């Protein structure tokens, strides 16, 4: 009669312990997955003002990346091409196409086309395209097989840990410098030995220093 709690409450502590255990782990795991760039960044696929197809140009037509992204070998930025570059061909090819209307407008009015940035590093991280190209890191390593993308999307997380994995062991991502833009290139059987030699010759020692990317 003086009992405050019914008998079943004696099992509460057990349930509680189990509950905490289960929920705790789930929360951690969820955070681990949904909180990570692999989820947050990968798959970012904005619609561009011009329905430009990398698949068509780089893939089917087999244009080289550097035709448009001219500065990639000389500069930090790969650079998005000026309207001029589009017009070089499209004054003759499909001059009437509806898809190309924004381009022609830009060309006429001089208002630049506002492309949406897909691969975007925080401003405190300084990535230099030219140095990676020179060291034989293929475009595909970071940007994925753009030549197969109708609409470009982000395929790698591009977070610091991800960068470090390659900086700590670059060999798998190296290729002959003349192959960097080749999306179809496959590493030969003896890639490992080749990479070792290549790193030797070009004295490739990817820095893990903070100062390499942050200034």
């Amino acid at each position, binding site marked *: 009669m003086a009992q405050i709690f019914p008998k079943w409450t004696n099992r509460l502590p057990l349930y509680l312990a189990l509950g905490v255990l289960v929920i705790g782990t789930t929360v951690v795991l969820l955070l681990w997955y949904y909180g990570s760039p692999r989820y947050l960044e990968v798959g*970012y696929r904005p619609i561009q003002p011009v329905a430009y197809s990398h698949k068509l140009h780089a893939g089917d037509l087999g244009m080289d990346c550097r035709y448009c992204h001219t500065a990639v070998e000389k500069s930090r930025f790969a*650079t998005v091409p*000026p*309207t001029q570059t589009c017009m070089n061909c499209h004054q003759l090819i499909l001059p009437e196409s509806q898809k190309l209307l924004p381009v022609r407008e830009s060309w006429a009015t001089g208002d630049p086309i506002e492309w949406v940035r897909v691969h975007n590093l925080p401003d405190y991280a300084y990535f230099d395209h*030219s140095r990676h190209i020179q060291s034989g890191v293929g475009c595909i390593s970071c940007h994925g097989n753009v030549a197969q993308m109708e609409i470009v999307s982000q395929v790698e997380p591009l977070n610091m840990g991800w960068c470090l994995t390659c900086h700590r062991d670059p060999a798998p991502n190296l290729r002959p410098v003349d192959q960097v833009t080749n999306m179809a290139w496959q590493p030969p059987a003896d890639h490992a030995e080749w990479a070792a030699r290549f790193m030797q010759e070009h004295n490739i020692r990817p*820095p893990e220093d903070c*100062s390499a990317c*942050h*200034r």
Partner: protein
Amino acid sequence: MSPIKKGHTLTGKQYWRSLDELAGTPEFEDWLHREFPQGASEWNNAWSRRSFLTLMGASLALAGLSGCRRPEEHIVPYVKKPEDMVPGNPLKYATAIPMGLHACGLLVESHEGRPTKIEGNLKHPANRGRTDARIQASVLDLYDPDRSTVPSRGGVRSDWTAFVSFWREQFVAFQATGGEGLAVLSETFSSPTMMRLRRAFEARFPNARWVAWDPISDENRYEAIRAVLGRVHQPVFHYDRAKVVLSLESDFLLTEPEAVTATLGFTSGRRIESEKDQMNRLYVVESLYTLTGANADHRLRINSSDVGAFALAVAGELQRQGLAIEGLNGLTVPTMTGRAAEWLAPLAKDLLRARGESLIVAGSGQPAAVHALVMAINGALGNLDRTITYVDNRDAAYPSTSGLTKLTADMAAGKVSALVMIGGNPVYNAPADLNFAAALSKVATSVHLSSRVDETSAATVWHIPRSHYLEMWGDARSLDGTLSVIQPLIEPLYQSVSEVELTALLASGESARGYDLVRETWAGLVTGNFEVGWQTALLNGILSDSALPSIPVNAAQVGIAQAMASHGWSLRPTATTNLEVVFHPCYTTGDGTRANNGWLHELPDPITKLSWDNVATFSPKTARELGVQNEDIVSIQLQGRELSIAAWIVPGQMDNAVGLSFGYGREKAGRVGNGVGVDTYRLRDSQNMYRAGSATVSNTGRRYELATTQDHGSMEGRPIILMASLDEYRENPDFITGASVIPEFMAESEKAKERDLVREYPSSWKEPDYSTGYQWGMSIDLTTCTGCQACTVACQAENNIPIVGKEQVRKGREMHWIRVDRYFTGDVEDPGMEHQPMPCQHCENAPCEQVCPVAATVHDTEGLNVMVYNRCIGTRYCSNNCPYKVRRFNFFNYTDEYPETIKMVQNPEVTVRSRGVMEKCTYCVQRINRGKQVAKLENRSIRDGEVTPACAQACPAEAIVFGNINDSESRVARVKRINRTYSLLGELNTQPRTTYLASIRNPNPEMKA
């Protein structure tokens, strides 16, 4: 397919990335005009790069352990890309900065069309790649948000074409009268194009007049030269050729226009590699404490008005010692007393010993008489054509106060119907007795070309926006006549014109483009194929061997006595007991034109270490007598004019002298400069331009808070700046050793080790291996460093260092990555002064690193102590543990308050720091990385001297050397091996990568200190 991820709500434009590409295009200018309607005082702070860290911060916190769902960001490419421009790689263009009658050659760095950083042009003889703080800061003036954007008539928005048509009418009208009643008031200039157009103007309007005037100038010197040589010649001082220099109140190392050139030359005579080398010797006679005085081997404080008498006494002594000085006869040589008397004999002896290699220079503040006398003495000492040459610069418009006086009188008398002012700001800085403003109100048509609607523009009918020199075509000669093109780095941001374009309009009635005008002039200057010559000139920044030939000046013709007599000049000592006011230009704001430049305001004065204010300086003795202390507001009466200003005590200043600097108290400078300091021009009259006796000073009892960056001026007997005289150094070349407070047992190992001061003590564990690859290090020579602080501003410009404002500086929160410490040495009443640049020392055993809880500051493999802003959480522990206190903390989001234009000056290669993070000198790691990139592309290693931090690059004394200490042949390695090398606070075993070369002075052994 995965859904398109929209960013979290991030309103406003993302300027940065886009701005990079946009700047300089027409769209951008439209935007600017939208952004800054004339006189707009409020601006909106859209999100932009500078706030990125904060932003990422907040969102990172939201998104847990990783990056955020980022905002949608746009890339705005060019429509037509300008050729030879690769986005991401800065370009450098050669141009020149006009400085009145002088000019310095520059290489300006431009990012995607935005000039961001100014460097010296190595090919230019005037500054040989070096700059000073004023030049470094001039890029900020370009983006000054308070510049006027369109011409205005009677304060109403107008435009250039309107003015052109207006002027056409005037033009026609004046042609009839040959320009009767038409006058032009310009700044001094030394420019072929300007002179060509001026002549055209004068030809067109014979009855018109053209007056050139600067509030602060060498007019007295020119007057003397005219009196003695019959016409004005430009003197060129070759400090590099002088063994003995006597400065009679000349601050040639800082405030004189040719400071950079002079510093280069002077310090080249003081750079010593070992105790065997020779040093030049500098005597300074002055009443205020100037930076030149601070660098003197012997300094004599004396009343400004007695300097002339002293010069005459020196002349007399020289004669007594057997030097014949022409035309001195008839002048009574005054007798000196006290230290001045003790000086004469040894000084004269030293000068005689260095005949032809000595140089006496009088300050611009000294009357013409003194300058004339100095010419005579220099002549007699055989210095003419050696350490001093004269050139006949026909392209120079020399200043004329008498011209201004006459013009103002006529204006007041209504004789002037139209006045065109090309630059200048006479309403603010004309001598008070001329009452220029009143006179101006009598002029029917007044036009003012000015970068902003300043005091003068507000009083004129027409205001025409003036182009910044980085926006305009022009040309300029430096003192020796070397000719350089001024070519624009960017299209004018606003509807502004250059002085050249305005003058052209005045002269021809037609609006012309600066480019054509300059080319037209140069057609007559370039020999051989014009296009080729022109392109080379543009490339090199100078016209090769355009330096003017020196005019042979015969000492005999220097008839000083006659000149004196004819002009009624006197050198008699004024036995003044009452207070003497001595005016001097402010190093930073100059004559006041730079008063809206935050970098310059925040830069502390090298002597007082005060920022954001000007003060009346007193010697401790005088202050005691007047019962005045620092920050007391004193009232100064002078010839019936009164001024209230805060007092500051400067040990070593002459007693009974009151130092007042120009350039403050602007009312229409802009949001930065308005109301900063006190306008001292109000005390100045045309008779006493630089000094005035019989002032009375009283303490008002009120106080005014001043912001100083250094509260304590004594070294407290600590081994901070190690010093010796040249003789002491020769006796004991290793005087460094044991000079610091190292305990005995350590001193042993100290002696044992050979002189590479990076490694000092045995370590109790295995130290990291720095023996391979690049190992960066720096050496700072305290012997040559003058303390001019060019490094400080250069660093501020390069590294996006924020301006924090007076209140924050007063709190002790200034952000300069490299500060220059100033210490007084010796006697309290008449002390010596030492300066020490203080950047991060990049200790190998950096105390800051071990205390950071998040490893935000660590070492990299090249020995840099790196500060990772985006990892920093802001505990400030590192700063506490830094014995050099070189770390700076963002207590607020300082850059947040910046107007958008100012953000355009920021260097995209350097992260803009957000609130709550620590920052510090990085050895300009962005430049190191750039150097590595270039080297990598060319598949080689970085050459010595290829990578230079902003401070080293600017330093006009070449005191800072940077490089790879692993390469024993590199300059820095060699300099570090000099036996004067020591590491500051080395006994803490921090093992700094930045070391100092002890300060050596070269006093005259025959003269008592």
